[in-house]
């Protein structure tokens, strides 16, 4: 589904220049370095964010042509907390919005469990695990990822 969203976004971006429209907005790229005492491994620090040494991005482009407009917005593209939306419409007649939003919720990172298959429907105890020896337990990031995909269409039948 992620691929579909990005392909749709790409098609819109490629197709719009052919419309001889006016454009405004911004595309920004940046970098981020996280330092500290294992800060990037603190689940509380990155509770709802995908924060690491990484390239950051933000997109806010608006196209306008006659009575048609299109807006593409996005941030943190390619990361676990990315969001992208395409909205547009015909002034006074219709508007639409497509969006994809991803949310990560980090409960605890670098956890350990005696179970293999955490997050799946079957938990098993690996033969390599000794219950009394925590050093043999299996590493685990206890996180929850949510993806939200939506669409909206609003028509004005009586202007």
């Amino acid at each position, binding site marked *: 589904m992620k691929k579909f969203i990005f392909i749709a976004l790409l098609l819109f971006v490629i197709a719009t220049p052919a419309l001889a429209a006016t454009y*405004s907005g911004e595309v920004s790229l940046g970098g981020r370095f996280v330092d500290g005492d294992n800060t990037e491994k603190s689940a509380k620090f990155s509770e709802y964010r995908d924060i690491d040494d990484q390239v950051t991005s933000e997109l806010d482009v608006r196209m306008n042509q006659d009575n048609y*407009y299109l807006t593409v917005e996005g941030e943190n593209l390619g990361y676990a907390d990315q969001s992208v939306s395409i909205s547009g419409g015909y002034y006074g007649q219709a508007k639409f919005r497509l969006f994809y939003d991803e949310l990560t*919720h980090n409960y605890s990172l670098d956890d350990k469990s005696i179970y293999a298959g955490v997050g799946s429907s079957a938990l098993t105890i690996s033969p390599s695990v000794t219950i009394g020896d925590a050093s043999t337990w299996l590493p685990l990031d206890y996180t929850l990822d949510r993806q*939200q995909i939506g669409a909206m269409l609003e028509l004005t039948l009586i202007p």
Partner: protein
Amino acid sequence: MKKRLLPLLAATLLLFAGQVFAAEANYVGSDSCAGCHEEVAQTHGDSIHAQAWAAMGGKYSESGCESCHGPGSAHVDSNSKADIVSFGEGSAQDAEAQSALCLNCHVTSIDLAFWDVSQHNGETSCADCHNTHASAAPKVDQPEVCFDCHKDVRRDSNKRSHHPIIEGKVSCGDCHNPHGSMEHGMLRADSKNQLCYTCHAEKRGPFIWEHPPVEENCGTCHESHGSRHDKLLSERVTNLCQNCHDWSYHPGTPYDNTGGFDPTGPSFDDKFVGRSCLNCHNTIHGSNSPDSKMFVR
């Protein structure tokens, strides 16, 4: 007596006629407005309103600034805000009158269907939150604009356990419709539970063993915006559970520093260890295990 009344009557009529005459203003065109309001005219030219009106044509594109602000000749003459329709702080019109002007066009919006019953309607005008002169779409900068008034929500959203509001992953408008809804708190669902289920679908059930307060109202145990307790709980787990479960089984007496699950055990503090009651009752939202009436698996 009649001689005395006549001049008074004539003066009153003159005064009334003068006010009526003064209220009649003519359209002066947007160029006249730009003569003084240069900055606003410039940003408004790029705004979604200006673009929409130019595209739609008709009376909006012809009247320009005066489409919303009304005929401006009296204002040009007097240079007073009282002589023109204005919006936001310092306006001579009350909030309801200001919003009525926006609704001339936006009344067909689905989002505004319940504006008449909105708690914002009356003392808040559209312009209090939306900047229609902005060079982009007049979207509200959430949550900052909402926090300007709802300071208690700002406080809760900054507590250690919170929904990702300040992180920008959940906006006020995701849960509330500030333009009004039929639900308390202007929620975007038929009830608080239905709203929560849009993200927390796994809590919806149905379960073989239902926990009544879960079915009834998520707000019985959880705060909506933030809490100083884990999982946005309104109290610490032991105390929260004992609000109801204070009469039977092992929590027969309120927990204090002398008694826990096992007062004769090695530590009287074991009731607060880990997830407390939830160490054992770990499916507290409901269980589908046939023998888990007490939500232990």
